């Protein structure tokens, strides 16, 4: 019996050690999450203005001379995939990867270390590894990604561009999502609004040439902030669950430990009593 009490005691110690780590990770994720959510709030007006403008343009636009309006289904697509840098975040990375629809020979812009690892073994072309750390992506990086995508799209390297990320709904819900960026055309060909006469300074094409990289960069930046918030939130939830499990295990093991200690004592007493009776 003393052997088994020792084993149990060691196990309790190891679970306590794990619990300390998960607790620390939870606290870190919580404090980082607060900042990530603030970030999301800050870019909201920008994001919304940009999106409503893009939607108006798509609806009202009748001039499709811009190269950004023409897609090509026969060419490979380009996917911007945004996920985490680290694991231990529940199903955060796996859920996103499961939702992807990627064909062989497509181009990928990975954002996040886990994405790079995931695609390393796949038969795809990686456009750039420059933005492999999702936590470090700033507005300027998104602008550069957008410029790169816009340039290659114009040259006809790929026929469409989309971005896959995890949308942050609230602290418990995040949905993997894929959003089409290019070709810049109405998604559903519904009835057109009665044409509002709009002056395009420098012509429609000039407006599109500048607006579209800005639009792509805005959407990507929005997607990155949303993904970061989702990752932290997901990690916090996973760590919370781990903590709870550790607590349960410790309680369980403590009970077992006490029982086995008690039975060892009982046995010793029985032995002593039995010895003294003779």
């Amino acid at each position, binding site marked *: 019996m003393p052997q088994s009490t020792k084993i149990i005691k060691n196990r309790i110690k190891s679970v306590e050690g794990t619990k300390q780590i998960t607790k620390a990770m939870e606290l870190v994720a919580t404090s980082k999450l607060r900042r990530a959510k603030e970030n999301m709030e800050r*870019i909201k*007006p920008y994001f919304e*203005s*940009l999106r409503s403008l893009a939607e108006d343009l798509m609806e009202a636009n009748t001039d499709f001379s811009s190269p950004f309006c023409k897609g090509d289904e026969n060419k490979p697509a380009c996917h911007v995939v945004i996920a985490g840098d680290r694991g231990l975040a529940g199903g955060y990375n796996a859920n996103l990867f499961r939702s992807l629809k990627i064909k062989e020979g497509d181009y990928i812009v990975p954002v996040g270390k886990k994405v790079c690892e995931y695609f390393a073994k796949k038969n795809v072309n990686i456009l750039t590894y420059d933005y492999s750390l999702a936590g470090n992506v700033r507005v300027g990086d998104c602008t550069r990604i957008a410029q790169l995508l816009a*340039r290659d799209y114009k040259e006809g390297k790929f026929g469409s561009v989309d971005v896959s990320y995890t949308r942050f709904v609230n602290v418990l819900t995040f949905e993997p999502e894929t959003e089409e960026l290019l070709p810049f055309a109405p998604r559903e060909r519904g009835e057109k609004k009665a044409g509002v*006469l*709009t*002056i395009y*300074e420098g012509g429609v094409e000039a407006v599109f040439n*500048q607006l579209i990289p800005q639009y792509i960069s805005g959407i990507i930046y929005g997607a990155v902030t949303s993904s970061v918030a989702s990752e932290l939130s997901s990690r916090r939830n996973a760590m919370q669950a781990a903590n709870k499990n550790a607590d349960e295990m410790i309680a369980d093991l403590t009970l077992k430990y006490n029982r086995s200690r008690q039975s060892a004592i009982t046995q010793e007493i029985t032995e002593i009593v039995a010895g003294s009776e003779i």
Partner: protein
Amino acid sequence: MSEYRLKIVTPDRLVYDDLAESLVARSITGDVCIMARHTEYISPLAIGQVKVKKKGEWRVASCSGGTLVVTGGNATIIADTFEWKDEIDLERAEKAKEKAEERMQSDGTEFEFKLAELKLKRAINRINTKRM
């Protein structure tokens, strides 16, 4: 003077969301002035200064590109970056200028050269706005 609603947003923040009397911005074809009851209008913005007039007073800012939209009588500037004159960090702008000049001298692809050139333009614009 009659006023209209002006909104200026950047990826970092909501810079301005208030009434304005007049706005002068540098579009890709030259300076444009927007006053109340302007028609529907979209223009890309070049790197340059933006001036906003409210209650008879002008405020100057540096803007490094974006889009100016007027819809339904309200104006919106969706800017890449936007700083009022008193917010500009002169030291940082000067450092960025040196760095961009250095990069333009070094060998690189045409694409990199263009990026550096844009960087230089932004830095010069900030410096000029601050020194106005």
